[in-house]
């Protein structure tokens, strides 16, 4: 009887997730060009080619840098903002709105906004630097390999701070004020209270925030695509964009889906601790 109730959802799940995923896995073992009706099976060749593709190596490194920076910085900033905004601050609702707004903006809009800010000749960032006499620091931010990835990461951090802030704010509401009062009476300073009351109280939130941020970081595509198109040259290619270029632009759908399979595997491995923690929590 349980199967009958589960069947509709299971059918949707199989048709729209499991089957496409399995067929993508299948195509990763072929040389399909993405347009033709026929293809050849090439076994593991696409996977063997990956380590010899310099752009895959570069994209993997960029993904790693992206993951570390765009997880650590927004989480730390989000936590800081949450703690500050959870205290007695004037204009609290307004400030929360301000910090969370970037998170609800369409990514293409975010890319356009930052593209204008970074414009080397007419952008606000270089204009500011020149206005304060720091002309030498004015850069073609998106137009040179040395700064392009960093510049896109700044936009990503701006975009993503609101999400951890909101989750941490919600979690902070669950910590009893009595604990802080008792700690104050016992002579504990603010720093001690933070480490011994706030941080342990936020442990469940840490799992959610960090796991979702890490998964999100490995899926990065749209911001890079819209801001730099993977360039200059291939300097800001990440696995997601390189997969897209191969599948949709280079007529190498077989190779592109092999890259997609690798991205999926990495995301699955990374999400295991999160899933396990959630399972344990519910089992209790």
């Amino acid at each position: 009887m349980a199967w009958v109730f589960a069947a509709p959802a299971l059918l949707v799940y199989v048709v729209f997730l499991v089957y496409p995923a399995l067929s993508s896995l299948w195509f990763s073992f072929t040389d399909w060009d993405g347009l033709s009706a026929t293809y050849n099976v090439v076994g593991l060749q696409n996977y063997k080619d990956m380590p010899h593709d310099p752009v895959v190596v570069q994209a993997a490194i960029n993904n790693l840098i992206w993951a570390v920076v765009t997880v650590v910085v927004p989480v730390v900033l989000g936590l800081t903002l949450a703690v500050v905004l959870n205290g007695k601050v004037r204009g609290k609702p307004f400030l929360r709105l301000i910090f969370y707004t970037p998170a609800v903006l369409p990514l293409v809009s975010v890319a356009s906004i930052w593209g204008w800010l970074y414009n080397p000749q007419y952008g606000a960032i270089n204009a500011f630097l020149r206005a304060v006499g720091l002309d030498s620091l004015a850069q073609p931010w998106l137009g040179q390999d040395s700064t392009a990835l960093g510049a896109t990461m700044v936009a990503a951090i701006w975009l993503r701070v609101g999400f951890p802030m909101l989750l941490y704010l919600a979690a902070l509401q669950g910590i009893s004020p009595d604990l802080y009062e008792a700690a104050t009476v016992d002579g504990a300073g603010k720093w001690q209270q933070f480490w011994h009351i706030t941080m342990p109280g936020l442990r469940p939130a840490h799992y959610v925030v960090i796991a979702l941020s890490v998964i999100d970081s490995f899926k990065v595509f749209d911001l890079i695509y819209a801001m730099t198109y993977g360039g200059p040259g291939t300097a800001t290619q990440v696995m997601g964009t390189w997969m897209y270029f191969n599948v949709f632009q280079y007529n190498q759908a077989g190779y592109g889906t092999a890259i997609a399979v690798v991205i999926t595997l990495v995301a699955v491995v990374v999400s295991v601790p999160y899933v396990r923690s959630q399972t344990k929590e519910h089992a209790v």
Partner: protein
Amino acid sequence: MINRRKFLGLSGGAAIAAGLAACTGTSSDSGSTTSTGSKELRLFTYEDNSTIDLLKEQVKKFDTQNGTTTTVDSLPGSGAAVYPDKLRTELLGGKGPDVWRIWGGQIGAPFVKAKQAMDLSTYYQKYGWDSKINPAAVEGMTFDGVKGGMPFIALGIGGWYSKAAFAKAGVTAPPKTYAELEEANAKLLKSGITPLGTGGKYGWHVMRLFEYLLETSAGPDLHDKLLTGDESWDRPEVVTAFTNFKKWQDQKWIPDGAVGLDPAEVELWYVQGKSAYTITGPWTEAQGIQAGGKKSEDFGVFEFPTDHDPLRHSGFVEGYMINAKTGNPDMAAALLDFLNQPETHKALKITASVVAGAEPDQATLPLSYEWAQGPAKKPFYTIQDQAFPKKEADQYFAIQSDVLQGKTSPADAAKKMQDVIKAMKK
């Protein structure tokens, strides 16, 4: 060799297969039609807001004459970097358009090679397109001998400039030699304006400058042989082109950080007074100058001097293809023939028609008319992002990007480009 249909048949029921087609972009390759009825067509294009209504008006006229219902969908402003992807996704989803507009060369080629586009030889005979359409344009829509598309426009690229910017800098006439162009650049820069407005995001626009410099240093014959891989790129002429390319960046004759700028934005700088000129085609008169509320008389157009005879500029062909799976190929071909009539071209305000008798109107588009009367009649070489498959074109641009950033020397760039061509020819 496996076909997707066999794969689908082996792997599950019809419902699951339908789901797969929707999700992975695969579809069974027979029996699928894109029209729900013999009188219904769908046309997919990339016309922008300034021209889409004109096209819809003409298509409506065709529908009235033929009792058809044609839906026109457009993806404006996307350019060759995005539009083909959308088209490909639609085709793989099993509901592609009956007719679509597309660029020639290596952008249109994959659709013909994959047999998604119909061989139009029969319709070339039926409508006499061979005799009505500019042969060079037909060549641009012929892929490995297959006439996979009907040319619609053939566009040449030139220098479109602000007369005010030239006058302010003391440049009294457009340059006639490469040396004069460099002199003009120096004067323009001194007057406080960036000479050439170009942007390298997506690669293709700044490539317009490099291909011009290559034509200048290599000359027409060698340039053509380089593009076909019949001559090595590891040679002095190519090194000179890369050296000059870097010089344009170092001298600030192109915008600071040009590699990262969006061409859609930068191309219009010459209209907005932020640059003196740009490299573009005649569409800029209607879509750039006039759409920006400016008068054509305040701008001019010139051919980039190459110091070679013939003086060639780069250009490209755009045309229409018919879906190999359309439910009504005859009606789709009739629509194409209708769209290529001189009177239709005039109604569409086409500035670079491939058919005689559809020249731009001198009164409303004087600069396009001027271009059509002279430079447009000269031979052109294929713009380089259409001369190479997309992957190689991107590698080519990556090399150009490295040269501009000083990461690769011009001599090494020539060697690297030869490696790209060598790998491609394998």
